[in-house]
């Protein structure tokens, strides 16, 4: 009985985190972007500095009509937002928040689970792009697929480097093996992983698949109401997952200069928040990469860098053992 209760509590905690943190990131994006552009951003909803703006947005989205275009493939069109969103919920289960047992479910092949399930999320964008019966959506879907194929490889290679360093694929296991000097040792891999993750999430500067000034909103052009909101939520959940993963793999997760026992979860949240701020900052400050520049960056810069990181990891590992 207590086992079942334990599992239920963990799942509820993960679900609450899944509902709360993406909204926090979204609200932060509203405010940070606004201040970086010399605006105030939302100020009215909820009273204090518009903190409830995204809740109000959610209510608004829920009230809107859910339109399916006449020429669309109805079932796939309606299924796509769920396929895009659910993988991120699953991934959160495997990410450790603190030392010991503070993780939804400790998995033996945690890295592979996380990367595999994140890759499935992109299928949602592809389904949406094809099923909308809209040429802009189809273009968006094509660009999404090309981008995923290019950036999946450097992401995997960078993660493999950390797994080599730790000698395990389990995320809590990697954190147990972590030492502070891993940060400079794996820094190149970390940058490659974070960049490739941004591209996989289609965040600026890698937002060619949704480039609004040329293909309207890519695969999501035809979506309205709640289903559109689910796609937006998937994007913010993706930011949460990417930042949490980067801090677990490359920044030591719950390790900190002090208070590792009681305050581990705080370090983890802090690192994730700083990375999420960086994601928002990049959106405000960098121009969009063109499609050929995107592909060139992945194949000629990121993959060689990731391979070099793996070589370095191997050499250092052999030397110190």
């Amino acid at each position, binding site marked *: 009985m207590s086992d079942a209760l334990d599992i239920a509590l963990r799942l509820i905690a993960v679900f609450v985190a899944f509902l709360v943190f993406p909204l926090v990131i*979204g609200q932060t994006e509203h405010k940070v*972007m606004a201040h970086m*552009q010399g605006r105030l951003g939302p100020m009215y909803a909820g009273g204090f500095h518009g903190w409830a703006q995204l809740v109000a*947005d959610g209510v*608004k*989205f829920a009230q*809107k009509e859910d339109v399916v275009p006449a*020429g*669309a*493939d109805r079932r*796939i069109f309606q299924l796509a937002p769920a396929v895009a969103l659910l993988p991120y919920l699953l991934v959160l289960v495997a990410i450790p928040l603190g030392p010991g047992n503070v993780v939804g479910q400790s*998995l*033996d*092949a945690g890295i*592979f*689970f996380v*990367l*595999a*399930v994140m*890759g*499935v999320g*992109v*299928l949602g964008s*592809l*389904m949406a*792009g*094809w*099923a909308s*019966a809209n040429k802009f959506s*189809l273009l968006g*879907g*094509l660009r999404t*697929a*090309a981008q*995923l*194929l290019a950036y*999946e490889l450097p992401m*995997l290679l960078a993660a493999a480097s950390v797994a080599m360093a730790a000698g*395990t*694929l389990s995320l809590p296991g990697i954190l147990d093996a972590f030492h502070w000097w891993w940060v400079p040792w794996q820094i190149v891999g970390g940058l490659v992983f974070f960049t490739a993750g941004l591209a996989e999430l289609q965040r*600026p500067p890698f*937002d060619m698949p949704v*480039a*609004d*000034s*040329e293909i309207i*909103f890519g695969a999501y052009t035809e979506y*309205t109401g709640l289903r559109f909101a689910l796609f*937006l939520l998937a994007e913010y959940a993706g930011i949460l997952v990417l930042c949490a993963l980067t801090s677990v793999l490359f920044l030591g997760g719950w390790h900190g200069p002090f208070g590792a026992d009681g305050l581990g979860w705080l370090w983890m949240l802090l690192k994730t928040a700083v990375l999420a701020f960086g994601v928002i900052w990049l*959106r*405000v*400050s960098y*121009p*969009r990469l*063109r499609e*050929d520049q995107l592909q060139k960056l992945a194949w000629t810069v990121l993959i060689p860098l990731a391979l070099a990181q793996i070589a370095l990891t191997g050499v250092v590992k052999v030397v110190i053992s």
Partner: protein
Amino acid sequence: MTLAAASHGFLSPTGVEIAFLLVGLVTLGAAVVTVTTKQLVHAALWLVVALGGIAVEYLLLTAEFIAWVQVLIYVGSVVVLLLFGLMLTKAPIGRSENADSGNRWAALIVAVASAAALVWVVTDAFRTTWIDLDGAVQGSTEASGRSLFQYWVLPFEALSVLLLAALVGAIVLSRKNDDRERSDGSERPGSGKQSGPREQSGSREQPGSRERPGDRARLREDQG
């Protein structure tokens, strides 16, 4: 793995065995729909169900590592590549009646023959082998890695050489086309020049024009 067929009857299956059978049926059904449906993209999506079902079967056999690799490679990459290819062609919504090659019977014969051979070989090899679910996990990453690099190194290396050959072949083929294009005329520099200024104007617009949730919603409200 133990040789203990006597203690495992077929008439009193455990929950895991029932789940294994049911998932197997779903996988088989999805695979059959994949090759019989007339809608091309639906076929690719049913393939996702079939490959995912196989991953669940691996999980039920305690091979966690293999299961996630299956999802990563097949669902995450191969199917995405398939969909990419389908989208580059016409891939219409609805049934495409003329997407039949006329090799239907030959394909059926080959499929049945290879399925029969596989089923025969696998049942013959693993007939009396049972996985002890209560003992140590036998499909963990460590166990897979050990057996792969201790007992199966030669096939592993042979496969990697095969993949390398395929990679080199792909590069050779694509470079041959490249030379021909270059000798044909000035297609590449021209397209490069065209896209230059467009990109600049796009990037200059970018920070202001990307107020996504709000802007788009506002636009819709104006329309409606």
